[in-house]
C-alpha cells in the first residue's frame, strides 16, 4: 500500500537541546496511526516537525511524494497537512462558527467551505447547537471537538491530533473517540498522539512507541498491545 506521509530519520529539538534522534515513520492512507511514549519521548516534537512549526535539523518529511522538509507551516497546511495542537489553541474571542471558518482559511479549503461546515456539524452536532457561542465558554470536551472541527475544515489529507483525551472526563473522551472512529471509517488518514496507551492501541491500526527521541517499537496495534516491551519503554525495566 502507498504511504501518504513519510518521516525519514528526522532529528530535531529546541535551541541546543536535541529531542528527536532519528525518527522514521510511515503513515498509510485511510489508516489511524498512533504515536505513544512516556513524557519527553518526543511525540509532540515529532508532530511539530512534521507540521514545520519546529525546524527539522536532519532527515526528511515527505507528503504525497513531495519533500516538504523545507516548507513553512502554512505551505504544508495548503497541501493538506493539519495539526490539532495540544491544548486546542482556539481563538477564544471568536464564536464556534468563526473558529471553524478560520480552519477554511487556506486556499485549498476555501472552495468547499460550506460543504465542509455541514460535514463538521454532522460529525459534532453539539457544535451546531452552539455555533454562535464564544469558544472560550465551551466545555473542555466541546473545545476539543471544535479544535478537531477546525482541522477538518481544512480538508485534511492527514489529520494529526496531539493529546485527544487529555484533561477530559471519560464521557467526553468517549464521544471524541467514537467520532474519531467514525472519521477513520469515512477514510480519513489520522495520526494520533494519545496518553492512554490502551485506548490508543485499541483505536488504531498501526502504532509507534517512542522512547527518548527514538522509535522503540512499531507494529500493528493489535500485535503491539500484547508486548511487554511497551511497559518497558515507559518504565525503563
Amino acid at each position, binding site marked *: 500500500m502507498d504511504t501518504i506521509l513519510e518521516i525519514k530519520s528526522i532529528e530535531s529539538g529546541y535551541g541546543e537541546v536535541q529531542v528527536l534522534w532519528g525518527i522514521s515513520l510511515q503513515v498509510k492512507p485511510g489508516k489511524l496511526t498512533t504515536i505513544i511514549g512516556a513524557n519527553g519521548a518526543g511525540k509532540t516534537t515529532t508532530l511539530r516537525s512534521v507540521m514545520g512549526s519546529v525546524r527539522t535539523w536532519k532527515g526528511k518529511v515527505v507528503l504525497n511524494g513531495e519533500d516538504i522538509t523545507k516548507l513553512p507551516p502554512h505551505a504544508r497546511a495548503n497541501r493538506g497537512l493539519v495539526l490539532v495542537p495540544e491544548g486546542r489553541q482556539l481563538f477564544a474571542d471568536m464564536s464556534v462558527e468563526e473558529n471553524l471558518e478560520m480552519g477554511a482559511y487556506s486556499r485549498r479549503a476555501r472552495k468547499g467551505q460550506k460543504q465542509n461546515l455541514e460535514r463538521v456539524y454532522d460529525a459534532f452536532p453539539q457544535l451546531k447547537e452552539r455555533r454562535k457561542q464564544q469558544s472560550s465558554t465551551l466545555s473542555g470536551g466541546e473545545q476539543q471537538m471544535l479544535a478537531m472541527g477546525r482541522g477538518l475544515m481544512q480538508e485534511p489529507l492527514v489529520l494529526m491530533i496531539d493529546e485527544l483525551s487529555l484533561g477530559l472526563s471519560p464521557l467526553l473522551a*468517549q464521544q471524541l473517540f467514537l467520532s474519531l472512529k467514525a472519521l477513520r471509517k469515512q477514510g480519513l488518514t489520522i495520526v494520533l498522539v494519545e496518553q492512554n496507551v490502551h485506548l490508543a492501541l485499541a483505536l488504531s491500526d498501526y502504532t509507534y512507541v517512542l522512547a527518548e527521541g527514538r522509535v522503540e517499537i512499531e507494529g500493528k496495534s493489535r500485535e503491539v498491545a500484547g508486548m511487554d516491551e511497551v511497559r518497558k519503554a515507559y*518504565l525503563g525495566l
Partner: protein
Amino acid sequence: MSTLLQVTGVSLRFGGLLAVSDVSFSIEHGEILGLIGPNGAGKTTLFNIVNGVYKVDKGQILFEGKDITNRPPNDVVHLGLSRTHQIVKPLNGMTVLENVTVGACFGRDYLGLHPARQAAMEVLEHVGLADRAETSARSLTIAGKKRLEVARALAARPKLLLLDEVLAGLNPTEIEQMIQIIRGIRQSGISVFMIEHVMQAIMNLSDRIVVLSFGQKLAEGLPEEVSHDPQVIEAYLGDPDIADKLLEDA
C-alpha cells in the same frame, strides 16, 4: 546502613489542590533513592519540602535524627542537604569557578574565599569542568550547565544531594557521563535523592524507587519491583480497561 533522612506523613496544599498528601519515606546513608511519577505528580514539590523551600501543612522531616521540618534551605544546607534545580540556575555574570565557589562559601562549612576556591576547583575536577573554570557560566552548553548545577551543590559538601532531572536535555553520551558522575558522588559517601524522567538511567542507578502519583506515594521498592507493579504501570500507561469502556459503540 542507618537512616539519613526520615520523612513522615508530609502534606502540602496549594489552595484547593493537595499537592503532596501524607507521604512517608526514608533514605539510608550511602543510598541512591529515585523519585519517579507522571507529570504533575508532585515530585519537585516534594523536593521543595525536603529542603525547606515550602513549609508543610502536616508531617515531619528528620535529618540525621534532627527535626528540620520547615527550616529554610539556607539553614538545612549547613546541616548537609543541598540540591540542584530542574531549570538550571547559574549565576550568569560569574565564571564557572566563581559559581561553584559560591556553593562552597555558603555550604555545610562556612569557608573563607580562599579555601572555598580550592574546594570548588576540586569539585570541578570531579565533574569534568576544570578546564572551563575561567569561562563565564553563560557560555556553557546545556550539558555544561547541568554539570555546573551539580558542582555548585556538591561544593556545599552535602551528606544528601537532591538532583532534579539532571539528565533532561542531554544526549546519550552526556547522559552516560552524568551517570558516571552520580556514581562517583555516591562512592564518595554522599547519599543521593534524584528525580528523573530518563527511566532506563534512574532504574539502573537507584537502589530503591519511590513512585508518586497525584501527590501520593503509589509504590516503593526495588527498581525491578516498581517497574512491574500494576498500579505503577497503570499510572504511566493509563487504565487498562478504559478501551473496553469507551470504545463499545454506545
